[in-house]
């Protein structure tokens, strides 16, 4: 039981961390609450399902194509639909939500509402503490850790990373230092959508695919970025694991807990907001107008 909780919690934590890192990045740099974020995760998983299932492409190629296509799509939609209305905060909110709904309905039309699955890339399993751990699980896990490490390196060691962090800290001053703020926001969106697509790609063999699979992660990601502090990637990753383990505990220990998991994440978020409104590692945008 405990080992089960640990294994499931670790996987959920990794996926939420990957999603929340991107969400947090685009909120920090672009000041956009990007509600379409987890819809891209769903989109990437469905593209892999289609490529592997119907078109018969090899799984490795399918992952690359899906991540690439989703990322290009995400940046295009950002430039065409979201950036022109950026000044109107609430319009952006509804626009991103409408876009997510649009993707869900398109997937529903093409693939129907059935639960789908993608065959594992690698077969076989091993047993750790009496829990069956598939090699696919290990592969997904290693990929996520590798990607998160790459993001951390990008943000802390490269010029682009410095530009991203500077824009997140203060748009105006970053602009004065000669950083192209608009381009930086677009690049942040590119990285964010790519992270969401990678998350979708690595979970596609492990989770069940359905057109509404983006809503629960969205609720959790919103809670995660609040608990960790908006715009802080370190906080997001910490909070993702905290909430993932809390959620998995609820699902395993409380009868019918699966219905409560979204509400429980939101409840933790509310408690954190009351005790520490800026989150665990958040920056308070007090001076911002």
């Amino acid at each position, binding site marked *: 039981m405990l080992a089960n909780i640990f294994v499931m919690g670790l996987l959920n934590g990794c996926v939420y961390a990957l999603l929340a890192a991107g969400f947090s990045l685009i909120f920090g740099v672009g000041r956009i609450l990007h509600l379409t974020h987890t819809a891209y995760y769903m989109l990437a998983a469905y593209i892999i399902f289609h490529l592997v299932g119907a078109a018969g492409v090899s799984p490795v190629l399918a992952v690359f194509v899906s991540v690439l296509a989703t990322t290009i799509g995400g940046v295009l939609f950002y430039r065409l639909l979201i950036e022109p*209305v950026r000044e109107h905060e609430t*319009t952006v909110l509804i626009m991103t939500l409408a876009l997510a709904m649009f993707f869900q*309905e398109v997937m529903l039309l093409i693939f129907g509402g059935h639960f789908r699955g993608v065959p594992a890339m690698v077969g076989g399993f091993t047993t750790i503490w009496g829990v069956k751990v598939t090699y696919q699980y290990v592969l997904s896990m290693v990929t996520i850790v590798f990607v998160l490490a790459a993001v951390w390196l990008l943000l802390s060691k490269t010029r682009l990373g410095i530009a991203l962090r500077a824009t997140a800290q203060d748009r105006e001053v970053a602009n004065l230092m000669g950083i192209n703020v608009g381009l930086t926001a677009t690049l942040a969106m590119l990285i964010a959508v790519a992270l969401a697509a990678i998350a979708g790609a690595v979970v596609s063999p492990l989770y069940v695919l359905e057109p509404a699979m983006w809503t629960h992660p969205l609720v959790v990601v919103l809670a995660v970025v609040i608990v960790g502090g908006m715009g802080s990637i370190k906080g997001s990753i910490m909070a993702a694991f905290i909430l993932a383990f809390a959620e998995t505990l609820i699902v395993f220990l409380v009868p019918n807990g699966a219905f409560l998991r*979204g509400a429980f994440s*939101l409840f933790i978020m509310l408690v954190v907001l009351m005790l520490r409104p800026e989150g665990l590692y958040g920056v308070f945008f007090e001076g911002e107008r």
Partner: protein
Amino acid sequence: MALFSWLIKYLSKEVFPLPTRMFAFVCLVFLLFLPLLTRDPYLLRILILANIFAVFAASWDLLSGYVGQINLGHALFFGVSAYASAILNLKLGWPPLLTVPAGALLAVLAGLVVGVPALRLKGPYLALATLALPVILMGVVFMFPGLTGGELGISGVARLAKTRVAEYYFTYFLMVALIAIIWKITDSRVGLIFHAIREDEIAVRASGINTTFYKLLAFCLSGLFAGLAGGLYAHFMRIAGPATLEMVTSFQAVIWTIFGGIATVYGPVVGVFILVPVMELLRLVPEVRMLAFALILILVLRFLPEGIASWVQDRLEKECPRCKARNAFTRRQCRVCFAPLENG
């Protein structure tokens, strides 16, 4: 008689000179006499729902559009009042005329409960915190199925009025009155302070205005109007279920308001009266209903980000550069101060 002459004067001075107000007036008169033309219960049902939702959306606009406190959990007020009205009606046998105000008062209380912790939060933090509240309340509703009916909700609530037409007129006049009240509030000194708090809260506080009081007032007023809408909804649908607390209900208020035009009061009303019938029309093509809805929303927001009502108003009217009064686009001179208006 005095009232009548005042009305004539008001109409000729304030309504007829402006094309958008003229249009709104014509629409109101048309809706007033509509039951003479048709008594189709389905059509009236759509319009009654539009009347109720117009108040609901306008109450969101008052709080989030004017004061800038983005509330993504507006369904909380709606749901609290719907459940309260239904329970009071069924368990205590109160008539709708008592249960709806009682439910609205409870929603005001809910407004205070949300408003006090919300004082500490700003912008997106507030938006996401409020998002959580109806979801948590829904969990509570499911925990007491004896009182709340659990997933099925409370059905068999008393009707709003005896006939469909009477229900239509009841909601119609209530909608007109409540929207007028909300409009007057936003037009008053309080409305000015609301505007100012959204633009720069620190500056308002520095001017010696108790922003805490006004923010709480906004939460209470918004709760009151949303609560009235919720109570009416429960009595009209004759059921108060968990759907009134769903995230979709909260987002609907936001969608209607943004679609029509935020921080305008008439914007949400226009949004509701366009989108509610459109959604009904789209029932003809059930497979692509939500797809078409999302597409309409995306296209309208992309090209008219300030909302459809604000866009039309900017085309049909221009502002006097001197006295800021609005004029029809055809005029050469301001109708109030006779300053020349540039054509462009």
